[in-house]
């Protein structure tokens, strides 16, 4: 490159690694301080404030609020819905990723785009869609009601809400890794006599496992935190159809926030753990992609 003869041989030879500390210069120092201050103000301070508030009375009252009946039931409901939604959308995600990557058919690009639609939808709108479709006067709801099946204002509606908002994650994370993995090893397995299912289990699945794990983690985190769609669809009756997020909202709105603080901390704590797992997996996936490129 002509340019390289003109450039100064500056202190770093590896372009993609960060500079050695230049915090002796005021410009970078100012910028760094500003950025870190913004980060602290926007992200850290509210988190600390909530933690302080939640643990204000001490650890005992905190634990006591968590074991109250409606709190416990709300967490049980949250975890059950999350588990079911994760299982269903993981199976769908894997299957659809295989279809999108390994099959060619008319409308494949359209189907690919459709998967991303839940990302463009506000949670309240998702809830509204479910009410319009499955409510007592809805297109499908009418028939279901006459068959005695209650969807909205009951837990099936909440399931559908969580299924909707978490639908894209596994597909989107598995498709690129599956695409990169390529068919060669699978075809070798076929020639050696492995059936399609055996090949999937023993060859395909292990090679996409980090992308899959990342997608599953995103699904769980999203489902744990789902609120807007659940609020619209659930009818929010205490003790019966309340998830953890609905419980928190109810606590704040009814000016009884003590239980809400404790529940928030627990939910935030679980989410934080999910975050650590997410970050670790994200780096694994990125590292794998980097390794594959070499």
């Amino acid at each position, binding site marked *: 490159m002509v*340019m390289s003869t*003109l*450039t*100064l041989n*500056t202190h770093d030879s590896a*372009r*993609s690694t*960060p*500079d050695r*500390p230049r915090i002796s210069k005021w*410009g*970078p120092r100012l*910028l760094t301080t500003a*950025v870190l201050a913004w*980060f602290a103000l*926007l*992200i850290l301070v*509210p988190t600390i*404030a909530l933690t302080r*508030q939640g643990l204000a009375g001490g650890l005992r009252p905190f634990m006591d609020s968590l074991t109250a009946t409606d709190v416990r039931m709300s967490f049980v409901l949250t975890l059950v819905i999350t588990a079911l939604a994760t299982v269903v959308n993981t199976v*769908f995600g894997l299957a*659809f990723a295989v*279809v999108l990557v390994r*099959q*060619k*058919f*008319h409308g494949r690009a359209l189907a690919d785009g*459709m998967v991303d*639609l*839940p*990302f*463009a*939808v*506000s*949670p*309240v*709108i*998702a809830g*509204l*869609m479910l009410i*319009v*479709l499955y409510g007592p006067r809805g*297109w499908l709801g009418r028939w279901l009601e006459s068959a005695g099946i209650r969807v909205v204002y009951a837990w099936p509606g909440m399931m*559908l809400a969580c*299924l*909707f908002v978490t639908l894209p994650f596994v597909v989107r994370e598995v498709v690129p890794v599956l695409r990169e993995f390529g068919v060669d090893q699978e075809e070798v397995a076929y020639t050696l006599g492995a059936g399609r299912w055996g090949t999937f289990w023993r060859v395909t699945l292990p090679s996409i496992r980090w992308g899959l794990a990342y997608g599953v983690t995103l699904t769980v*985190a999203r489902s*744990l*935190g789902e609120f*807007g769609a659940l609020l619209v669809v659930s009818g929010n009756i205490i003790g019966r159809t309340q998830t953890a997020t609905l419980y*928190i*909202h109810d606590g*704040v709105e009814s000016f009884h926030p003590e239980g809400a603080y404790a529940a*928030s901390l627990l*939910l*935030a704590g679980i*989410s*934080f753990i999910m*975050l650590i797992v997410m*970050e670790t997996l994200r780096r694994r996936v990125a590292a794998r992609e980097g390794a594959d490129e070499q």
Partner: protein
Amino acid sequence: MSHAARRPSGLLLRSATLSYLSVMVVLPFLILTIQAFQPGLTAFWKALTNPFAWHALKLTFATALAMVVINAVTGTATAWVLVRYAIPGKAFVNALIDLPFAVPTVVTGLMLVVLYGPTSALGAILGQHGLRVIYETPGIVLALMFVTYPFVIRSVQPVLLEMDRAEEEAAATLGAGPFTTFRRVTLPILWPSILTGTALSFSRALGEFGSVVLVAGNRPLATKTAPMYIFGEVESGNLHGAMVVSTVLLASSLAILIVLNLLQRRRGGAS
């Protein structure tokens, strides 16, 4: 159709997954749009130009825009500092950037109420100076900034990491100061990723509900955003009004996603 697509098992897999997708995603979209327009175009327009609906939409777009402008600057700066400088605790900060992705939106709202609410220390101090955050528009923008914090950063970071510094260094040898170098050399390379990040955060902000509903105070014609309006109309039984505003929000988000998709494809998938 490929060989894999024609196999019976492939056919089964494809029809099963496409059916699931149709029932779960396509059908709800279709029904909502159809029913929003079913009473006719005049009814649609009337529901849309209802002063409460119109104000809610204006507020939503305005707060999203304000957030996006701030985020474009702070997000790029943060990505810059994370990639180019060595700071103590960088791994810690880098991991926490994604916290807003993991935290449930209601918890975000609660955090902000705890910190800035009228009964809090900080809220009282700010209130004395006439700066009301919670139950006012600044609170909405603050909530939006929190939940969309990672978008621009995570969009710009990979581009910065992969960037070839040769041109920047050449500009430096030719006498350009750091600002000029950034403006004329770096920014042109970065702006597509900045645009992607801001478009994603804008789209997300249009629909944000959980954090805003706790922070905004629900005053119609003052602090009621479009998602809150939609929720209110569903609760009071005005499903058509809710559907009309929903259609507008959906169309906006979809337009943004489609434009982003086209731009990314034009660039050969590099983002």
